[in-house]
């Protein structure tokens, strides 16, 4: 088993939480992992990205080679395209939230962004904010996106649930349940749509 995943978004959107959930789940399954994060400027609205590699064998590079990623999970549509060169053209999946984060004056028209995403073979787009709101809070949009990507992760769904319980344990039952529901709603959406 070997999955190379690019996580993308804007600082503060919670992509490192997604990485922690997947990473914890991978460890629960006894897999190895390497995760290269971007630190520094993230609190100031710049783009952020993380390379997450999980495998049953040894992992060499901290960086995923170009054109070799199995999956891109993005919490923002334009950000999902920034790393599209990393995706495996023949097998890779692109899973992204459709909700634009507009903090630059030259943000392109959303329709154009979505059109470009829909041209990528094997894509899933989800209104993660709406789905998260339906589950109780827009804050769980990152976990909705993770849920939508869960069928392509190569990790058992139960392991992700287990990881969420572990990671959010200190935050109380309500937060755990919100994130479990968000994960499940994201997954159901992806399964239905594809």
């Amino acid at each position: 088993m070997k999955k190379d995943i690019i996580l993308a978004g804007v600082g503060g959107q919670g992509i490192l939480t997604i990485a922690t959930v997947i990473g914890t789940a991978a460890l629960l399954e006894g897999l190895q992992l390497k995760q290269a994060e971007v630190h520094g400027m993230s609190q100031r609205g710049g783009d952020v990205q993380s390379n997450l590699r999980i495998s049953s064998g040894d992992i060499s590079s901290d960086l995923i080679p170009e054109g070799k990623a199995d999956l891109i999970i993005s919490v923002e549509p334009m950000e999902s395209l920034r790393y599209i060169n990393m995706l495996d053209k023949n097998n890779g999946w692109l899973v992204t939230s459709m909700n634009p984060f507009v903090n630059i004056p030259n943000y392109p028209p959303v329709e154009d962004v979505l059109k470009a995403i829909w041209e990528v073979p094997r894509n899933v787009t989800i209104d993660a904010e709406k789905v998260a709101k339906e589950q109780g809070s827009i804050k769980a949009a990152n976990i909705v996106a993770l849920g939508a990507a869960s069928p392509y992760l190569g990790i058992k769904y139960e392991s992700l649930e287990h990881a969420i319980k572990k990671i959010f344990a200190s935050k109380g039952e309500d937060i755990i349940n919100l994130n479990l529901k968000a994960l499940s709603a994201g997954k159901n959406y992806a399964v239905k749509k594809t």
Partner: protein
Amino acid sequence: MQKLLLLGDEAIAQGAIDAGISGVYAYPGTPSTEITEYIQASKDAKENNIRSSWSANEKTAMESAIGMSYAGKKSLVCMKHVGLNVAADAFINSAITGANGGLVVLSADDPSMHSSQNEQDSRFYGKFSLIPVMEPSNQQEAYDMTRYAFELSEKFGTPVLIRVTTRLAHSRAGVERKEMLAQNEIKLPSDLKQFILLPSIARKQYDILLGKQDDFENDAETSGFNTLFDGTDKSLGIIACGLAYNYLAENYQDKELLYPVLKVGQYPIPVNMVNSLYESVDEILVLEDGYPLIEELLRGLLNKGKKVRGRMDGSIPASGELNPNKVAAALKLEVETGHTIPDIVQGRPPKLCDGCSHTDSFTALNEAMLDYSAGRVFSDIGCYTLSALAPLESINSCVDMGASITMAIGAADAGLIPSVAAIGDSTFTHSGITGLLDAVNTKSPITVIILDNSTTGMTGGQDSSAFGKVEEICKGVGVEEDRIRVIKPLRRHHEENLKVIREELEYNGVSVIIAKRECIQTLGRRMKEKARQKREVKTVK
């Protein structure tokens, strides 16, 4: 023991704790900051009284660590690569004094300049000062090499440099811990003159250092951190330093690597190993995630030996971080490409947070500067450097920490009056105070704006050495009291702040305007923590 999931930085921190350090000395700087933060938060460190508070700058950190080593205890110093320039005087002379207690210096390089002004390669500092250098390729090695660096330091009585790059510093993987070694007891050097670098003693100490070079090299040949893997295809030999080894291995996940490879993780360069490789192959490829250190030496000035490929002949681009694809191209392997990135993708540069005090300071300054010709604002390094970008576009320089005040002095001396310096509180105590003293002593017609947000914002909000002291420091340095003006950078104070700035720009001498309002990120964190503590008190009741 169970594996811990650690950043490269955290693995170094844990390695140092387990090596029995008594203290870490550091000034924040990406990508090295997390090392000290990890030690500050570590339970083991607390239980064992490991000192870990921030130093005012890299030089003071380095010198304090030398002092701890003098007293016989083990100490770690951490900084980003440009910090080693600041600490260089102390660092290079510590090679001459030698170490008593284990002394390990960590410098985190930033190839590709993810968050730095340059991509200098710290290994050159190791070579320059004639001390051993460790360069880990992964998180486990980061842990193991840190422990080993302390052993090496005490075995040979020398400081040891560890060099990492951003990619390893900020990447997580499983790390296995070993047992925790005890701290040293206090024990002064047997020769109490060893650390007095008067010329007569320094000459003797320098000879001692030169005499250790063979030992350093022997150790690099035998420690196990440099390995020569033989291969059957002798048309090419590969030297892969530090992280570069992983990118090499990545390209041979599904095929056998037939070329001989020398994996390098410890310097001085293991010459015998390099020679064995060189003699057995037709051509050499050198993979270094930094400047071409080994490549340049192998190639020589005249480049008349065997063909040596790497950064200098264009096999690998001359600048920027390595990655698996660059290494694949250098190996003439087929390079995978993905989809092309559509043109509609726009850059998303970082910017000042909404509500940041710097925005209000620069909005007022911009308006005041309209009275003068453009190009007079010398800035420094911190969040406020982002005011270089639209929409503020306030500043005209950012060179190195502290350079704002001193560059303003020089420009004013050249006739650019008024000249303005903009400097953050942490940068001010890092290396702005001495510049301000110069200005006072020469009555330089400059206006210094100290952007005092009570924190080291750029690197994530560490405690600032300047906290609560900025005004007193300025008075102490000799700035006239009525030329020290404190303003509160808030939109609703714009008019009065503008008036203050205008008055001080007109003053023909040194004035300091302290723009004082807390960073909203640290404020937010503080409020959250307060609320949490309140909740806890309630539940205890």
